[in-house]
C-alpha cells in the first residue's frame, strides 16, 4: 500500500498525462494550421469585425516565390510582429506605397515591447512591401516570372503571350515593370480585384 504522499504523486501523475497530451495536441494542431494556406475564396470573405481573427489558423505564405531578403523579412515578421498580430490581421488598407509601409513598420518599432532593431524593421518592411504588392492576383501571376528575384520584371522574363500586358504596365517605357506598375494596371483595367486582407480590420485598427 503506497504511503499517502506517494498516492498523491501517483494520482497527480496519472491526471497530468491526459492534460499534457491535450496540450501537445493543441500545439500540434496549431503547427499544422501554420502549414495550411487558406484557400483564396476563403481569404476573400469579409471577416467579422469583432471575431478572434488571431485564432484562425495563421496564414503561412509560400516562400518559394520570395527573394531571399523578403523571406528573411517574412520570418522576422512572424517573430517580431507575431507577438501581437498574425497575417490574418494584416495591417490596414490605408498603407499602399512602399513609403507608407516603411513608415508604418517604423511606427511599430517605436512601440513598447516591439523588440525590434532598426535592421529588424528594415527587414520586415521589405516583406510587408512585397506582401502588400503581391496581394494582387495579377501581380502574383506576373511576378512569378521574376526568375532572378530582383523584384522587377524585364521583357525577357515574361512569356510572349503576356508581353502585351507587360507593355501596358510599363507606363514609363523603361523596359522594366515593377509590382506597383502591375497593380496600377490591374486597378485601372479592372482585371483583378485588389485582394486586401487588411479589409478584415476595422477602420480604426493600427492607425
Amino acid at each position: 500500500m503506497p504511503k499517502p504522499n506517494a498516492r498523491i504523486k501517483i494520482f497527480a501523475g496519472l491526471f497530468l498525462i491526459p492534460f499534457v497530451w491535450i496540450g501537445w495536441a493543441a500545439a500540434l494542431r496549431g503547427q499544422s494550421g501554420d502549414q495550411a494556406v487558406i484557400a483564396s475564396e476563403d481569404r476573400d470573405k469579409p471577416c467579422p469585425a469583432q471575431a478572434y481573427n488571431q485564432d484562425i489558423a495563421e496564414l503561412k505564405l509560400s516562400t518559394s516565390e520570395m527573394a531571399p531578403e523578403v523571406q528573411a523579412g517574412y520570418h522576422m515578421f512572424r517573430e517580431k510582429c507575431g507577438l501581437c498580430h498574425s497575417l490574418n490581421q494584416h495591417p490596414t488598407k490605408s498603407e499602399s506605397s512602399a513609403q507608407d509601409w516603411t513608415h508604418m513598420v517604423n511606427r511599430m518599432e517605436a512601440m513598447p515591447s516591439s523588440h525590434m532593431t532598426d535592421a529588424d524593421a528594415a527587414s520586415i518592411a521589405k516583406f510587408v512591401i512585397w506582401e502588400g504588392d503581391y496581394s494582387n492576383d495579377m501581380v502574383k501571376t506576373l511576378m512569378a516570372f521574376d526568375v532572378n528575384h530582383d523584384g522587377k520584371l524585364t521583357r525577357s522574363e515574361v512569356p510572349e503571350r503576356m508581353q502585351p500586358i507587360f507593355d501596358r504596365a510599363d507606363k514609363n517605357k523603361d523596359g522594366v515593370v515593377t509590382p506597383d506598375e502591375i497593380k496600377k494596371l490591374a486597378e485601372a483595367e479592372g482585371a483583378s480585384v485588389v485582394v486586401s486582407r487588411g479589409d478584415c480590420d476595422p477602420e480604426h485598427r493600427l492607425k
Partner: protein
Amino acid sequence: MRQYWSRSLMFVALGSGIFTLTPKAEAMPMYSRRYNLKCSACHTIAPQLNQMGWMFKRLGYHLPPALMKGQQAPSISDLVKKEPQWTVTDNVSVAVADFAFMATRNTQDGAAPTSSSAFQVNIWNNYFGGWVPDTNFFYLAELDIITNGSINPTLTNAYFGYTGGNAKTSWYLAGGREHLQIGEGTRAAQVYSLNLSSPLMFESPSANNFVLDQSPVGIDGGLTWASDNYKNILAATVKVTNGDNADGSEILGLSDKNSKDVWFDADWWFAPESGITFLDYYGKVDTIQNAGAANQSTYRGAIRRVGAFANYLIANKVDVMAGYMLTKDDYQPLPGMTGSYFRANDYYGELNYYVNQLTALSGRYDLLEQRVTGGPGAQSMHQWSAALNRSLVRSGTVIGRLGYSYLTGRDPILQIGSSSATYEADVLFNF
C-alpha cells in the same frame, strides 16, 4: 500565551499554502477585443504584464502610441479620439475562469500529515473596464465571484480616474477600491506570476496579520515619463488608503482606525523589458489582544515595508528576476510590552524561460527570514516553485499550466515546523 498560539497558527496556515495559491488577477480580454490584438501584446503570458500592458494602464487604458524621435507625442485626448467605437463587448469580460486540479500534502510538527485533492472552479472573475467615450476618464470594476474554489463575490476593484498630459509625459488621478498590485511595477515587482503563487513577500502575513497584497479603498496618483521609442520609462505613484482591519480584511467603510496608510512606488523600465522598482509602504494596523477576555484591548502598531526589485530580460528569452523586502513592524506579543517588534528580510529569485511566444518555463526560490521580540530568533521559510505555462490558442485567451510548489520552514513565534507540497494543473479561460 493565547496570542502566541493564534499568531503561530497564522504562520502555520501560511505553511499549508492556503494564502498562496490564487493568482491575483487575470487577463482582461475586453481590451484584446477592442484592438483586435493578441493577449501577448500586453502580457508575457497572461496575467503577467509586459511593458506595453503596463503603459496601457498608465495611459488610462489607451494603447501606447509610437513615440518616434523628433515627433510630437499625441495627447491623451488625441488617443481618445482614435479609439474605436465604444461597445459593451469591448468593455466587459464575464468569463474569466480557472479550472484546476490541485493536490496538496501538509505536515506540521506534532500532527499527522494530511493530504487533499480536488477538481474545482478555482476562479471566476468578471471585469468591466475601459474609458468614458470622448473623455479622458477611465474606470475598472472587477467582481470576483469564485476565489480559491469558494463562492465569495467580492468587488476587488472599483475605481474611476482621469489621465492627462500626453503619451510621453502623462499623469493620472484615481479613486475607489483598487487592488494594490505592489506598485503595478516593473516585472519583478508585480504580484502577477507565472508560478502557482506570487512571491511570498507579497502574500505572507506579518505577526500583526498584515498582508501587503490587498485591495483597500483610497486615492492614488501617478506620473509617467517615456523617452523616444520607450527606451526608458520613469514613473512614480503615491497611494493613500484605509489599510487593513485587525482580521486582515480591507477597511471599506468607517473605521476606528483613523490613520491612513501611504504607499510610494518608483519604477524605471529600460529596453527591452527590463526594470527596477523601489517601493515603500507605511501604515498602521490594529491587533486585538486577549480577544474575548474581559481585558480585551486593541494594539495599533506601525507597519513599514521597503522593497527593491529588478529584472533583466536576456535575448528576449530569459527573464531573470529578483526581489528584496525589509519588514519593520511594531509588534506586542503581550499587552503593554513596549519596544518589541517583528522584523523580516524576504528575498526571492526567479527565472522565466520563454521557449516561444506561447510557452514559458518558470522557477522561483523564496526565502523569508522572520523574527519577533522574545521569540526564538530568526526563523526561515523556504519555497521552491516551478511551472510550465502554455497558451493553447494563438490569441493567448486559453492557457494551460502545470505547477509545483514546496513550502517549508518554522514560524518565528513558536518554532512550529511545517511543510506543504502542492501539485496543480489548471486551464485558464479569458473571454
